């Protein structure tokens, strides 16, 4: 019973984390048809910047409190806006309209560049920003003590998810965005500034990626290579739910979260295996994902 409760809670926490680190990826793909490999770099940059900011602040004020959360948020927004603009205006706009695989390769190139940029800025050593994680004490669920920060991720991420969904389906710009998703040419003929929607969407996706990193910073030790590991995991999450679908990303995160947690409990050596087996099965049987809409195919 206790094991079951532990698996459920762990899965939920892990799924929330998966959702926040991959939602930006699916958002950008859904609107722009860009599978952004550089999402891994945005995550890593967000984590580095947040960890660095928290470290700097804590150095001056030992009991900093909730200011740390503000620092993490600011770090995510600054990184997302700066790097997002750089990628979208600097690289992507030159390859719009080319084959989607070419666009993937362009973002892969950006990813490679940013990997080294991070090493040059932050060096090879690890950054640890554990302080925010202990702001909320520990909470006991079914007799098992949990770190409050981890549990709070669940409602926070649920809020972000609902917020994104509402922004798309319940606001005017959201409705215009749906028009852009369905048909770029008609949307632009109706007077919608498609280029601006692209830029704004990419910035939102980039900020979400960096936010995922910033929120992860207290949970992990921030070292070179975290972006490399994250991006394949995020791919799995968004592909399982259906590329470009917010609801899908949530389902994908829950499935991967549950699968991986169960693996860790029962057969730890299958941890990575489980995730990609699920991804493979979904891709093989329903390439558009559990929540994606089947496209008219040429074959």
């Amino acid at each position, binding site marked *: 019973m206790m094991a079951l409760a532990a698996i459920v809670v762990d899965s939920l926490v892990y799924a929330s984390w998966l959702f926040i680190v991959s939602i930006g990826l699916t958002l950008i793909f859904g609107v722009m048809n860009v599978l952004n490999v550089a999402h891994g770099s945005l995550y890593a940059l967000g984590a580095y910047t947040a960890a660095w900011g928290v470290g700097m602040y804590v150095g001056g004020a030992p009991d900093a409190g909730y200011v740390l959360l503000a620092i993490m948020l600011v770090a995510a927004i600054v990184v997302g806006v700066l790097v997002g603009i750089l990628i979208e205006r600097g690289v992507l706009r030159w390859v719009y309209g080319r084959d989607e695989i070419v666009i*993937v390769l362009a973002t892969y190139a950006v990813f*490679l560049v940013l990997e080294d940029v991070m090493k040059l800025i932050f060096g090879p050593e690890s950054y640890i920003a554990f302080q925010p994680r202990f702001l909320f004490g520990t909470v006991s669920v079914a007799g098992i003590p949990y770190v409050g920060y981890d549990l709070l991720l669940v409602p926070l991420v649920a809020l972000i998810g609902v917020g994104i969904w509402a922004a798309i389906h319940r606001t005017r710009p959201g409705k215009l965005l749906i028009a852009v998703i369905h048909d770029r040419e008609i949307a632009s003929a109706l007077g919608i500034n498609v280029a601006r929607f692209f830029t704004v969407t990419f910035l939102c996706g980039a900020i979400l990626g960096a936010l995922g990193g910033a929120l992860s910073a207290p949970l992990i030790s921030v070292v070179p290579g975290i972006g490399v590991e994250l991006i394949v995991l995020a791919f799995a999450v968004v592909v399982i739910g259906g590329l470009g679908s917010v609801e899908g990303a949530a389902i994908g995160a829950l499935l991967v979260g549950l699968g991986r947690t169960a693996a860790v409990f029962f057969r730890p*050596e299958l941890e990575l295996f489980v995730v990609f087996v699920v991804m493979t099965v979904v891709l093989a049987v329903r390439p558009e994902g559990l929540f994606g809409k089947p496209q008219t195919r040429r074959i």
Partner: protein
Amino acid sequence: MTTLRNIRPTTAGIALAAAALLGLWPLLPAWAAHTAAVSLGGGLVALGLMILIRFGLVSFGQGLFFAIGGYAAALANQFLGITDMLVLSVAGIAAAGTIAWALGYIVRGHRGIFFAMLNLAFSMILFGILAKTVALGSTDGFSVGVPTLLGVAPGPEAGRLTFVLFGFIVISSALVAWMVDRILASPVGYAGQGVRENELRLRYLGVSARGAVHLAYIMAAKLAALGGVFTVLLIGHVTPEDTAYWTKSGEFVFVAILGGAGNVAAPFIAQTVFELVRTFALQYVPEAWQMLLGITLLLVILFLPGGLWSLVDRLRGRNA
């Protein structure tokens, strides 16, 4: 009758390049011979990707077959005691061919991003298995003995890269490149163009697009496996991260794009450039190696969509 005039320029080029490499062996310093041999191994993997690119497909998981080839050879060596490089190569190709044949039934209906991602998922499954299998050294991998050829064993002082291994790699790469060139000029090769440009029309012509993709997929897998065998024999060690992880697959895609799909020589040229630049970059600017790769890839995508080979085509066009 085949006269000298009728020989394809590519065939002549392959034969000349192979002869030159073999002839240069006594003059080549050890590092250069090693770089050349490693480039041929990696070039074979990129050659497989080039076939897929001709079909309009990019695989982000070619490390899967590279790893299968490398591990098949390493396992046959370690657990069956086989040292013959010919047998090890056949083992690698057979293993990859069989698995690609089976997986082909799943991937042949996929195109674009889904094809790339499905292969990525396959390779990550293998990585997950290899990295957690203690019997195979987990993430540390294991070592591979010095190979022999038809009973010819190198002397104890000869080191890993002997003339036998070098010659074997050069000659088999040349033969394989020649075969691929011929296949690309055959109906199967032209079916690739059909799949890339208009699959529906291809079907009206009575050609099975899925069947053609399946064939290309198996070919690419066998090439990657042979490259894996060569690489493992040259390096003497095999690990999951240097074979099956997605970063390795990304490297191969980089090389294939850098070379371009214009000619079977392109992947080998690109892989050689890649290896040389890596050798020097790791020595002088180790912090900026990936940055160099990324910027090069961006420049190729933006200004040289046909890869390095399009430069050759451009030169030839000017001369003609």
